[in-house]
């Protein structure tokens, strides 16, 4: 009922994994995300406090460093959420918070470092001993596995288990929901049907991935891909025991209830929409893991809570953290911001999302770029920010598609909307005249029916009416909004949805991870799941994306980010209005709390308790 913030990765737009938070407030940060650094295999993890300087527990402290750095063990961590995970199956999860939570029980060849800010967005070896060794002009990438890594039942993890996990990505008919990168990059015409229909006796028939021995895994890509290390941090790269997954009682679509842990915690019980309990995994060996610790005894997640009730539990200290990390609701935001003591326990990270509208050039009335520019000038960004929840609940006013947390981001504003940012109506009318519609035109605005979407749409509607652009708002169920409503171009055309409310964050924190789905003309998916909503077809953007995928030079990648961002704004394909922020509340009893640059939210796996309860 209440007007809660739409979830960050709500409606499965994509997953936010962005770089750095406070560290990136300068407009031109140097990207470091994928430059490989390694600490070798078998190195025992050092305690977080020994590595990093802690910060004082004050407002927004977790965006600057580690709050309450400590090695104290024991206690139970209590997470709460109004919803549930999209899935616990590592191959089927795509929500940002689900991916972040997978770190408790799914290890991957590479993983994001357990460090605050931008350092946390760096992919470091996890199951692997070192980052991928690149040969064959970038098309062959080889990893070696560490010794002593085991599943929760004590079975050693081999390269075949990793390959099997990758193969599951191909069985979209049985395991839908997760990202399909592996399927897109590794099939190479084999039309591999996934392990369940595999005729190979060991169900390891995928030719492009080879396992010459139990410690080595070789990926043969169809084209060079320089972000492969970062891609492997996603849970779709987690090892899966084939003997469990091929058991009809435990595997396939039922694997999400029988996930075999490779991390420090394992699933004790899971009741969808109700509760999840994790306990220590006895088979996990700290000496093999440089990222995670086993500080708390138990992790619980209470799900399906009423949002109001959930926020009250957080503020009263009955619960520790909200798992979706979308921030407090309006009433609790007011309560926290008005009370200095409570405010000291709150953080306001940039989530790595940009909130805005997509202006579809394939819808007839928006086909002319000048008509789209008129919309850019006429928008009242202050009203849009207010509708989104103001500078705290909503975020800072945006003028670019790329968020400030993206490596290579540079600030610019092609459509200055006056000193008070309420819109430049003269310019808008000029553009309308150029477009041949001096008296305006009519189009529709699509939005979800929950959260801030409807209010944001009405704010734009009111602003556009000032220059004669009339609009009707159409609301859609949020559960299918991104996947099928605005994600199916034919549906967008037939319903004449010229303007679409959208939010976007990267799947993984690189320019390619951010822009490829929303700007690549070759990724306009006609059958649903399309994220290139404006149907951008710019050869310069496609070329910059190809360059980004091939190059390993951070400077070149940064230049590509700027090229794409400028082209998107010049073409007025997107109308960004806020760089998303979430006002989140952390229980003061928690230790080692920081915002990771990888996810724009707390790094769950590092957190402990100071009272041992």
């Amino acid at each position: 009922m209440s007007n809660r913030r739409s979830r960050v990765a709500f409606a499965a737009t994509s997953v936010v994994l962005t770089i750095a938070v406070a560290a990136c407030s300068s407009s031109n940060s140097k990207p470091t995300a994928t430059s490989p650094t390694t600490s070798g295999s078998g190195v025992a993890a050092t305690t977080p406090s020994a590595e990093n300087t802690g910060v004082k527990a004050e407002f927004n402290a977790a965006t600057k460093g580690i709050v309450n750095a400590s090695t104290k063990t024991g206690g139970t961590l209590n997470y709460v959420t109004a919803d549930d995970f999209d899935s616990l199956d590592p191959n089927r999860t795509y929500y940002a918070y689900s991916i972040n939570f997978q770190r408790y029980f799914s290890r991957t060849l590479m993983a994001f470092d357990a460090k605050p800010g931008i350092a946390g967005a760096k992919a470091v070896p996890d199951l692997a001993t070192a980052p991928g060794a690149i040969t064959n002009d970038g098309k062959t990438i080889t990893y070696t596995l560490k010794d002593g890594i085991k599943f929760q039942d004590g079975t050693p993890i081999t390269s075949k288990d990793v390959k099997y996990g990758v193969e599951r990505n191909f069985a979209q008919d049985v395991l839908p929901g997760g990202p399909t990168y592996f399927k897109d990059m590794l099939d190479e015409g084999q039309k591999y049907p996934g392990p369940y229909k595999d005729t190979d006796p060991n169900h390891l028939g995928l030719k492009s991935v080879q396992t010459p021995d139990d410690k080595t895994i070789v990926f043969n890509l169809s084209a060079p891909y320089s972000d492969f290390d970062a891609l492997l941090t996603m849970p779709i790269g987690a090892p899966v025991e084939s003997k469990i997954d091929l058991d009809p009682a435990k595997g396939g679509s039922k694997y999400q209830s029988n996930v075999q842990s490779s991390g420090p915690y394992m699933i004790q019980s899971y009741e969808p929409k109700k509760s999840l309990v994790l306990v220590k995994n006895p088979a996990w060996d700290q000496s093999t893991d440089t990222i995670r610790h086993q500080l708390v005894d138990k992790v619980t997640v209470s799900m399906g809570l009423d949002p109001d009730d959930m926020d009250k539990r957080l503020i009263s200290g009955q619960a520790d953290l909200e798992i979706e990390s979308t921030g407090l609701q309006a009433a609790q935001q007011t309560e926290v911001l008005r009370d200095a003591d409570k405010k000291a326990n709150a953080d306001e990270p940039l989530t790595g999302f940009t909130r805005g509208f997509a202006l579809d050039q394939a819808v007839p009335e928006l086909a002319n770029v000048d008509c789209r520019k008129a919309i850019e000038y006429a928008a009242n960004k202050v009203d849009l920010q207010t509708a989104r929840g103001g500078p705290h609940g909503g975020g800072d006013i945006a003028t670019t598609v790329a968020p400030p947390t993206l490596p290579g981001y540079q600030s610019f504003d092609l459509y200055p909307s006056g000193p008070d940012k309420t819109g430049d109506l003269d310019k808008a009318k000029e553009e309308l005249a150029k477009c041949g519609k001096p008296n305006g035109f009519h189009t529709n605005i699509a939005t979800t029916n929950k959260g801030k979407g409807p209010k944001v749409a009405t704010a734009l509607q009111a602003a556009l009416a000032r220059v004669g652009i009339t609009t009707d708002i159409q609301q859609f169920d949020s559960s299918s909004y991104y996947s099928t409503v605005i994600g199916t171009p034919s549906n967008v055309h037939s319903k004449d949805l010229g303007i679409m409310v959208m939010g976007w964050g990267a799947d993984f924190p690189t320019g390619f991870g951010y822009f490829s789905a929303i700007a690549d003309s070759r990724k306009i998916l006609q059958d649903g799941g399309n994220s290139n909503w404006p149907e951008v077809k710019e050869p310069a953007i496609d070329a910059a994306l190809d360059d980004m995928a091939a190059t390993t030079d951070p400077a070149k990648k940064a230049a590509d980010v700027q090229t794409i961002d400028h082209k998107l704004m010049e073409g007025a394909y997107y109308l960004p209005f806020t760089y998303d922020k979430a006002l989140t509340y952390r229980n003061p009893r928690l230790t080692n709390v920081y915002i990771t640059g990888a996810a724009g939210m707390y790094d769950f796996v590092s957190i402990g308790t100071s009272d041992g309860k």
Partner: protein
Amino acid sequence: MIRRVIQAVTVLFAISIITFGLFFMVPKLAGADPATLFAGKITSPDALNGIRIKLGLNHPLWQQYWDYIGGFFHSRQFDNGPDKTTCSWPCLGYSFKNDQSVSHLIADRFPITLSLAIGAPIIWLTSGVLVGRVSALRPRSLADRSSMIVALAAISLPVYFTAAVLRLFVVFKWHWLDDIDYHGFTDNPELWAKNLLLPWISLAALYAASYARFTRGAMLEVLNEDYIRTARAKGLVERKVINRHAMRPVGTLIITLFGMDVGQLMGGAILTESVFGLHGLGKLGVDAIGAHDLPIIMGVTILAAFFIVMANIVVDMLYAIIDPRVRLS
């Protein structure tokens, strides 16, 4: 009686067909393939195909309906090659969004709805009948007039407004109660009652008012009847006249009304549950509509209709027991 039962079954049947047809059409009208609704972000043709086979969406509509009804009588199997899901009897459908059978979900949510449908009726029945009786015995008195105006006012309030105002004062301003945090009756009866107090009161206020008005109207009518005059003329004590002779026919009418209202409530109190964040059947249904989760919508709708139809039958039977003049046709 048999005619009653046959009518009840056909009514349920009609409702299930309409619900199935409508909710099958709604996603299509909204431009969404039912299969894509389960696929999440990625909607590759393979994924969609797998879902269609597993859910039987590739069958004609009538067969899907037939299979669905079959689940009432035996367990169902959802197969897509090696990937099998069993929905054990009684199968009201299987929610793939939640990966749980609808019967399980309903069984899980029903205690909350039942708690509402037990507590609130007790409050409204006692208070409503009491006020109505007092009013009827002193028609046009100050007590009568003021209580009837209050009753009319209570009927004129939307339940979500009453609920919000109650919560504003009781929880936020006066701090008499903490916010709602549902506890099962078996876990802790005291916390159960304490946390359901506000929902009960908000819900009961609406009904109590109309019961008071109803009781008053019915009693006034009965008190004008000849047999009451006869009883009084015989010199019976007024209290006996009221309790023994007047309340009896009034009670019959109230039981009728009460049965229907409780039956309706058992299907879920959408507004009260939503406002107080109680996860009962009504909220389950509303959330399922938002998620286009057809099996849940079907299950909740049919169950709600079932309770209403059952309440009708029960009320008719009670009526016949209380008032032997009424024969069941």
